[in-house]
């Protein structure tokens, strides 16, 4: 069996190397090859992790939270395996372990931080048996791929039952996630924000309006955004749990700051939603038993470089790239963009490839009317479904420029724009757009 593991590791490393040489994202291929050669490779490798395995799940914020948690554990002097690129299906997870393994199939790691696609947890969890599950939130996302939220919740519920000792670190402000954790029978800790911070648009789409326990309509003392907020059921006793890790004195602006457990946390990010990502990573590292003294330093150095609010500079224009792939994420993106009151141009690129979800009707659940503001000097729509995006804006009386070619759109706005450009893209547009921006940044 040992030989088989070694062959699988070698073959996968070779595949990974070749793909990289050819300039392709070869991670999932490496995983595929490894599991073909040695079907229980993931069990063999993950069982060697010395201390604990974290699995990060949830609709939004998985990649950022998971990578931040990895960095936080590393800041505590731990060796960590992590699927950094966000390849979060079985093959991607296998690849993360295989590529971190030595040639002889030995793993040298204290922790593993594994981002797991919710639907893929069925294949991943029984193999790696996580010690901790970090659950960020549940929003509507790619209904054509995942089906309704109820289906995702059923899968997660099943996984919690399958790994009963797994401790759940959950966003208590989300009634759906909190319900799963509280009713699972698994041990859990919660994080949340107990006071209102930003105004939530009245017409925002909110999931899970009805109590999962008894079916009564939930009451809210306030909303943060989407269905996140301070909820309670007027009929049964289901209510937002008092958070174990509570972010207080939250300030949102050009940077974020808040206090948790008496520590003052400052991060050079925009976007209120990032408070949740940071808080989740903090809760993770604290739950693992660390004091979190190095958390602030880690955050100052942390640079995800993965198209999440990533900055570029092209011929004097500051360009911010961000991923926005579902209504909740997009609304948070828009609110982050609008916090910048300077004149700005915006490019929105929407694709409908398989990984994006082929159904783009979710665009109509995004509150684009908030972009109708004097500081927004132009909006350019791009990507495969630019026509739909243009129409979406038309129905909130916002005119836009149609340019299907993302590179041309960026070049045009760098040429004639305000010098302050935001590029919002969905999933498959992310990597290509990031490559374009990197290339343009290098051009003289």
């Amino acid at each position: 069996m040992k030989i088989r593991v070694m062959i699988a590791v070698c073959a996968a490393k070779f595949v990974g190397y070749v793909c990289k040489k050819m300039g392709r994202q070869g991670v999932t291929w490496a995983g595929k090859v490894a599991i073909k050669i040695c079907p229980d490779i993931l069990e063999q490798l993950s069982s060697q992790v010395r201390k604990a395995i974290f699995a990060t799940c949830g609709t939004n914020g998985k990649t950022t939270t998971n990578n931040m948690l990895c960095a936080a554990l590393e800041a505590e002097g731990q060796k960590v395996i992590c699927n950094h690129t966000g390849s979060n299906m079985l093959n991607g997870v296998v690849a993360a372990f295989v590529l971190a393994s030595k040639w002889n199939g030995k793993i040298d790691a204290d922790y593993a931080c594994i981002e797991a696609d919710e639907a893929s947890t069925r294949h991943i969890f029984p193999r790696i048996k996580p010690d901790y599950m970090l659950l960020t939130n549940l929003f509507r996302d790619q209904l054509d791929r995942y089906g309704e939220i109820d289906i995702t919740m059923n899968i997660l519920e099943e996984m919690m039952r399958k790994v009963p000792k797994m401790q759940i670190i959950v966003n208590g402000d989300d009634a759906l996630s909190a319900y799963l954790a509280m009713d699972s029978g698994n041990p859990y800790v919660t994080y949340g924000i107990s006071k209102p911070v930003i105004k939530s648009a009245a017409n925002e789409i909110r999931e899970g309006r009805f109590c999962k326990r008894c079916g009564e309509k939930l009451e809210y003392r306030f909303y943060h955004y989407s269905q996140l907020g301070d909820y309670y059921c007027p009929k049964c006793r289901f209510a937002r749990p008092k958070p174990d890790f509570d972010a207080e004195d939250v300030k949102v602006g050009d940077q974020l700051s808040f206090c948790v457990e008496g520590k003052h946390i400052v991060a050079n990010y925009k976007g209120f939603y990032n408070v949740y990502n940071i808080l989740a990573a903090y809760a993770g590292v604290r739950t693992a038993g660390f004091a979190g003294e190095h958390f602030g330093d880690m955050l100052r150095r942390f640079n995800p470089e993965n198209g999440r609010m990533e900055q570029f500079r092209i011929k004097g224009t500051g360009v911010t790239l961000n991923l926005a792939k579902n209504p909740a994420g997009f609304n948070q993106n828009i609110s982050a963009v609008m916090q910048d009151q300077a004149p700005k141009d915006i490019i929105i690129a929407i694709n409908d490839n398989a990984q994006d979800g082929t159904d783009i009707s979710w665009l109509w659940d995004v509150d684009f009317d908030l972009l109708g503001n004097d500081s927004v000097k132009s909006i350019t729509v791009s990507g495969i479904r630019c026509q739909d995006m243009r129409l979406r804006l038309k129905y909130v009386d916002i005119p836009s420029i149609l340019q299907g070619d993302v590179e041309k759109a960026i070049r045009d706005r760098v040429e004639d724009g305000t010098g302050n450009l935001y590029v919002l893209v969905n999933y498959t547009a992310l990597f290509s757009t990031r490559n374009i921006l990197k290339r343009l940044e290098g051009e003289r």
Partner: protein
Amino acid sequence: MKITIGHLYPDLLNLYGDRGNIQCLMKRCQWRGIEAETIPFELDDKIDFSKLDIVLLGGGSDREQMIVCEKLQEIQPDFKAYVEDNGVVIAICGGYQLLGKYYKTDQGNMKGLDLVDLYTEQGEGRLIQNIVLQSDLFDMPIVGFENHGGRTCINNNKPLGKVLYGAGNDGKSGYEGVVYKNVIGTYLHGPLLPKNPQLADWLIQHALERKYGKETELTPLDDSQEKEANDYIYHRFVRG
């Protein structure tokens, strides 16, 4: 002139983009100087159908549809009278299924509103894809996205259109949706109306004619962006 749109249970039936249909109807009225109002109804609200000109019944998850279906039995007689009196209804996806006699799933049998002589039974696998129809009612093709596990049989009723690409009512008959009096039922979301302005205007026009009792001609709008978006889907999936 004024149009009042009743949006049934948006709290529960608000799957992807249904909001866009309301937005589309409102805007297309307002752009023409027709006053438009939408009343969202919650489960416990009383619905006075005599005050409504268009009723929108959207889709929800199976669980949510089950909650609504119980409630619907209470409003059935009023709703039925509205339909028979040529009230305009647009029912989409789950809402379409609820128009019929029943929706049979492996979880049980959901009783429908029995407004139109049709029924739905759960089939093997979900039908998920872009879809294009040709309807007798309009020259433009109807484009959208379908995502349904149910197979709907419309008996002797008139379908909304012939399927040019996609599955349609049951994946076999080659037809999609239903038209009964001033009721349109369809699996198409996307959302349905913005890329199919002729369908949106059909609803508005029939609502106005019913309310004001005379033939109405709607002021034409500049629909070039709508047409281009519709055209894109048509060419991508039907005409290569």
